[in-house]
């Protein structure tokens, strides 16, 4: 699977300053935490999806559709067992599922999807170098920002190597479809060891290449892309802050959007 999410376009979102986008993502995260009623979170998700379409990035979500569905299903199935609500739907040996807990599960599922999508939105519209640049300008130490950006950069590379390794071992007769637990364990080594070793070789090599180009994490360096905060950035941040304030008002003063009180 191709894990490169960035897609070069020239939409308004691509042109925003990376600081704005990182800040915006955090604001949306907090907005998501304001409610635990599925309907309210669905509205927020709809908003995020609208931004996705205007940023021409829906294909990124499509790429990860299975993961998103999986997260949602897990949340809906598991949450009801850990939360107690008033309206009991059914009971079995001390396990009970209530209408509220079920709705809460839905809400948490939608929230997870919103979180992941919002993160993907950042990755889909921001170059790796811009993320590094944004983090540094936000005061994150360079080595930390660089390590983070490198992790994002290397994920697709290692996924590619992993795919090749799977093909190489399948060609030797490795059966990936077997249901047997024992054979599942046995097939771990032929896949994990080459992946690990090639990742080690790769990163070591990369470090050599970076140093050879004069890179050192503690030294000052200039940046080829120098994003600027413009009126558009301030507008976006302002709108999101207003939305957050409105949501806090709805939740704290009007007690809207709550299915289980006292929980995030």
């Amino acid at each position, binding site marked *: 699977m191709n894990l490169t999410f960035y897609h070069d376009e020239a939409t308004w979102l691509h042109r925003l300053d990376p600081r704005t986008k990182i800040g915006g993502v955090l604001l949306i995260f907090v907005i998501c935490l304001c409610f635990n009623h599925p309907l309210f979170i669905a509205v927020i998700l709809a908003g995020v999806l609208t931004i996705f379409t205007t940023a021409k990035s829906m294909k990124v979500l499509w790429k990860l559709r299975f993961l998103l569905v999986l997260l949602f299903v897990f949340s809906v199935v598991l949450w009801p067992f850990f939360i107690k609500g008033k309206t009991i739907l059914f009971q079995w040996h001390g396990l009970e599922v209530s209408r509220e807990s079920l709705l809460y599960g839905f809400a948490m599922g939608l929230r997870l999807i919103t979180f992941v999508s919002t993160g993907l939105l950042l990755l889909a519209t921001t170059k790796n170098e811009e993320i590094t640049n944004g983090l540094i300008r936000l005061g994150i130490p360079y080595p930390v920002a660089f390590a983070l950006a490198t992790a994002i950069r290397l994920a697709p590379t290692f996924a590619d190597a992993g795919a*090749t390794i799977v093909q*190489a071992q399948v*060609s*030797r007769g490795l059966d990936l479809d077997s249901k047997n637990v024992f054979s599942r364990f046995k097939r771990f080594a032929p896949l994990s060891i080459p992946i690990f*070793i090639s990742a080690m070789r*790769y990163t070591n090599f990369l470090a050599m290449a*970076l*140093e050879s180009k004069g890179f050192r994490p503690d030294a000052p*360096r200039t940046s*080829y892309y120098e994003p600027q905060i413009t009126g558009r950035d301030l507008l976006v941040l302002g709108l999101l802050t207003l939305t957050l304030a409105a949501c806090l008002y709805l939740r704290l003063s009007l007690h809207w959007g709550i299915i289980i009180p006292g929980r995030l």
Partner: protein
Amino acid sequence: MTSSIVFDHLSFSYQNTTAPALQDVTGEMTRGSFTMVMGHSGAGKSTLCCATNGLVPRFLRGDYAGRVMAEGMEAGKNSVPDMARTVGIVLQDFEAQLFSTNVELEMAFGLENQCLPRTAMEERINTYLQVVGLEELLRRDTATLSGGQKQRLAIGSVLAMETPVLVMDEPTTDIDPEGRRHILSLIRRLRTRERTLIVTDLDAEAAVQADQIWLLKEGHLAARGTPAEILTDSSLVESCGIRPLATVALFQAMNWPGQPLTVEAAAAEIENRRLLCPHHPECRSISAIAPGKVILETRNLSYRYLAGATNALNNIDLTINEGDFVAMLGQNGSGKTTLAKHFNGLLKPTAGDMLVRGRPVNHYRRHELAREVGYVFQNPDHQIFAPTVREEVAFGPRILGMDRKTLEGNIAEALDATGLSGFEDSNPFLLNRGERQRVAVASILAVKPAVIILDEPTTGLDYVHQRDTMEMLKRLNQLGHTIIVITHAMWIAEAYARRSILMKEGRILLDGPTSTVFSDEAMLAAASLAPSDLVRLRNRLGLAAMTLTDMVKELRSEAVPPGSF
């Protein structure tokens, strides 16, 4: 002339190894010169490159003695990032060097480290992208570039730093012939500037244009001199693991006067001195062997990687017979590997059929197919995982449920065929690249598949190892295995394959006996390929032989009609 780089009694052994990588290397490279460093694999070429900017010993640690001066800076004493102002280095694995999101950012990376202001960066990026011929691809994602383009980008990004010394470690390895041509012509253009150039390569044909050749052998500087001095000494060159220039070798074998370094020079020499009487190529015959049963067959096969994308393969109709030795040729992206991955069911056709012994490939179970068609991947490190060679080789047969006795027998045979007997208990990770390649082949061989497919089995190997690998495949072919080799190395196809399949843009351009395919230089050019020097000379002279030995035989026995070959 001022010296740019000075090696002063340099010796180095890597940590945890006994054999030294470099031993007492002493020599100078003058400013603005172009030095080609050659030698067998493990001769110390990469170590020498890394010593120029201090990666050896500051990053790759070990016992270091002597010193290296680059433009007055001592490599071992300064940090690697400091040396980067003087020495630019393009490391061997160009894929791993590209780090940025797009082409212009990759070019900018080194300049950012030099703290250049944006306008200056822009200027340099534009200048040097033009030098490497990538100016159209400014905003392209680096992952979508071809191998040759990636290598040129890696070179360009180092060039942009405008260091007085430029080092390139095997810049043409693992690149298709067209990409290789681009890079060699780029190197030719680079040397006209005020810049000291050090390039390592395995191929004598690439070294002709250098000022100096340094020959390394087991860490020693075995010889240095001009190409005319070094390359004309075939036995010296061969003893260092390098395939001698075909033209020189032929003239020596024929006892002809002169030592031409290029095909053009050789042809002119032969004509001027009337070394040959006019030849009549029309009665050339091909030694056809009786074809065995059909084992692989594609019927109107097409394949697309993603819905909506263009076809990677278009309506391929192909049969491969038992006992054949086939070379699949073409540029990167021509569809060779995609087609080969259909042969063992790794990919399923989007349209059409893939048959193995007349049975559709999806009617086979995975382990049945693994016994019919084995596939050796390009990079042995993508499959090696076991702590010993024996266990590695045993993995396939064991997982396919072979009983103990057959298993032991097969392993012994496979190790014997690959020349790895005695290595049973070695750790495969500690073997050299050539040996790891052979472990990968042995691990497929132990299953005894009827067909063995090898994707670029000679990448990263020197001449001696390439020849060993191919001789091994020849033996396996004689034992009845069908061999299919995907390769960029033309001489390998010429010397070993009976049949060659030429691919371009997902279609088969030409398919026939190798000697016929390689006579059609126009068709090869259409697929962006060209025969090796030896076969280009053969085509000019109108001979039938495809190897040096056969050619010498053919030329010596002018009395015998060429049809009998």
